[in-house]
């Protein structure tokens, strides 16, 4: 019975999109800045074109703010039609509680397994062989952003990787320039995570986070990681740490700092300031050391709804989000990489193109932290890294031991 209904809905949505009744579908997400809004508008435009109506329910403040709201709405019996949610462990409980719509049939029908890449994205939407969410884009956090002018003006070589930057740091400091700008909170976690990947290597990083390999977590590879973090903290002392990530990027743009480590979304800040990649600044994936990228990204889930019209609209939306045109239009505005390889991205900027190139090599791509470990453990690791960064009394051995303890205690 249930399957039949679903199948009917599926038929209605896929086969007869133009005849389908106009249904209002409320979509919650946390994209509210100018560029993000423009990107969402592409989704909405495409969805409205199917004869349905996208009702926007933007709630800014990242998943920490939105999650309780989304869960409350679902529990209160008034779920939204679709919602952005961090993929993986975060949503597992909702899926296990049977609150999320299974969209496996649609995924099979449209052969998502083949058209969406990398495979890790769809995998994190899949629980027990069933698909529950649609990945819409890829974001990566392994980028070093360097202000070329700072080096050129001072007659120094522009560093091409993190090690060269550290080598140049004393000279920069002598000139009153902060070698590395840094923001409070998750930005520090991101820097430390990037150093783990750069210093210990992708394999070891994944082994620790995904397989919980304690010998590596406690071993010399990660000792080196924490030594590198300890080295970084002297270049970004506590009184130079700014509250927000974009302020840290802004310091690089203004030339007050030489470099910053941040995700690909930082590219937008440079663009707004009118800086050109390759000329004014460099973007170095994998911190310029090994060209690797993690594949964080945004996905949409579809809470179960009693109304078959809404279920049909949900499937229409899911299908719409991964069509070629929508993927291109959305990702160009969002500054992220599309899920499909078979689209034309000639309009992409240099940094995006670098990212796309790396994406083509499956070995250079690895899952993001939240796809491998639960949010609670990530929060604890973030706390630890922040504290390690701020508290110069904390020793490398101490930090590594605490890190290993969190990994060990994390639920599998």
């Amino acid at each position, binding site marked *: 019975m249930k399957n039949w209904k679903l199948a009917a809905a599926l038929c209605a949505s896929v086969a007869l999109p133009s005849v389908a009744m106009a249904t209002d579908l409320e979509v919650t997400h946390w994209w509210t800045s100018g560029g993000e809004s423009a990107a969402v508008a592409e989704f909405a435009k495409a969805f409205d074109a199917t004869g349905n109506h996208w009702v926007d329910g933007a709630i800014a403040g990242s998943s*920490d703010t939105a999650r309780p709201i989304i869960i409350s709405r679902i529990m209160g019996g008034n779920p939204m039609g679709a919602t952005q949610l961090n993929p993986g462990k975060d949503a597992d409980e909702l899926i296990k509680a049977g609150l999320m719509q299974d969209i496996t049939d649609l995924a099979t029908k449209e052969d998502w397994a083949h058209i969406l890449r990398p495979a890790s994205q769809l995998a994190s939407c899949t629980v027990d062989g069933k698909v529950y969410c649609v990945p819409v884009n890829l974001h990566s956090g392994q980028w070093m952003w360097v202000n070329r002018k700072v080096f050129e003006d001072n007659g120094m070589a522009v560093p091409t990787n993190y090690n060269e930057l550290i080598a140049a740091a004393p000279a920069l400091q002598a000139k009153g320039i902060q070698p590395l700008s840094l923001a409070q909170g998750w930005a520090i976690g991101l820097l430390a995570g990037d150093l783990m990947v750069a210093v210990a290597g992708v394999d070891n990083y994944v082994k620790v986070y995904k397989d919980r390999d304690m010998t590596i977590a406690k071993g010399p590879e990660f000792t080196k990681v924490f030594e590198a973090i300890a080295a970084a903290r002297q270049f970004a002392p*506590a*009184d130079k740490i700014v509250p927000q990530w974009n302020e840290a990027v802004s310091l690089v743009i203004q030339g007050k700092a030489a470099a910053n480590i941040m995700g690909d979304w930082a590219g937008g800040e440079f663009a707004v300031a009118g800086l050109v990649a390759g000329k004014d600044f460099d973007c170095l994936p994998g911190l310029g050391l090994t060209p690797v990228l993690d594949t964080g990204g945004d996905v949409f889930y579809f809470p179960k709804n009693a109304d078959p019209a809404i279920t049909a609209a949900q499937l229409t939306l899911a299908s719409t989000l991964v069509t070629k045109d929508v993927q291109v239009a959305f990702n160009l505005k969002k500054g992220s990489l599309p899920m499909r390889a078979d689209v034309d991205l000639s309009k992409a900027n240099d940094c995006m193109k670098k990212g796309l190139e790396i994406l083509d090599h499956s070995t250079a791509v690895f899952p993001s932290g939240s796809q491998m470990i639960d949010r609670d453990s990530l929060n604890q690791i973030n*706390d630890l890294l922040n504290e390690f960064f701020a*508290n110069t009394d904390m020793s490398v051995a101490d930090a590594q031991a605490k890190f290993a303890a969190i990994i060990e205690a994390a639920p599998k």
Partner: protein
Amino acid sequence: MMLIVLGVFVCGTIWTVLFSFTNIKILPIFTPKEWIDGFVGLANYRRLFNTDRWMSCPAITHIGMADWRFTCTGALPNMVTYAVLSIAIAVSLGFLLAVLMDQKIRAEGVFRTIYLYPFALSFVVTGHVWAWIMSPEYGLQASMRQLGWDSFSFGWIADRKMVMYAIVIAGIWQGTGFVMALMLAGLRGIDEDIWKASKVDGIPAWRTYIQIVIPMMKPVLVTIFVIVTSGAVRIYDLVVAITDGGPGISSDVPSRYIYQNFSANLGQSLSASTVMLVAMAIVLIPWIRMEFGKKSQA
């Protein structure tokens, strides 16, 4: 209505306490069966008190209570520091301002609004402004040095040991106006004849305030004390907006711990809330019995 409210608080509290003993994570659970299935005993509490972020007291065994603040770090001690300082300063400054406002001054409305406005604005942004002002990079320190005062130093916000005091400053800025308003309401609830009588008796105004008016305002003072304390105990926005717990985790507070875990590990959130609740109950209940018990008997 009263019963509904009572029911909500009682139910909410019971739920909080009971399910703090379960492995509840992201999705809330409510049924007895789920409680039995998820029961993990004191695991949440064990983790809570093993977390540096909550409380870490390396030297508490051999140093007396007087040094508690200076040896312990973490959210709980931070909250105590904040509460003690902000209450003391906001209440005394609020009282001073209320007394001055009560001197039949001109433009009372303007002053009152100036002192109160911080209370009206969302702290998400005003906190950011404070972060700017206190930031050694952008704020007061940088400006003073630009003006040529090179030795001027105000970097509390980036100093692990001073950061809570920086938050206290912003807390006072936000909360004193309301304390002032409540004090002013209290002052104006005092019988005018009391003032006349004290004038005829030749009692100087400051003695009238201290020896007659303040004792008369005791119920209002108790109200202020409870409101300010409950605000201080639940301090959240302020810290998130100004330091977001930094540098490191040195300015974390219990509410922030509770909020952050709320969307990642409800069990931690609930056990931390229970600890706060029990702590408040230990402090409050005997006091309430003393304070209000005698009144209802009289």
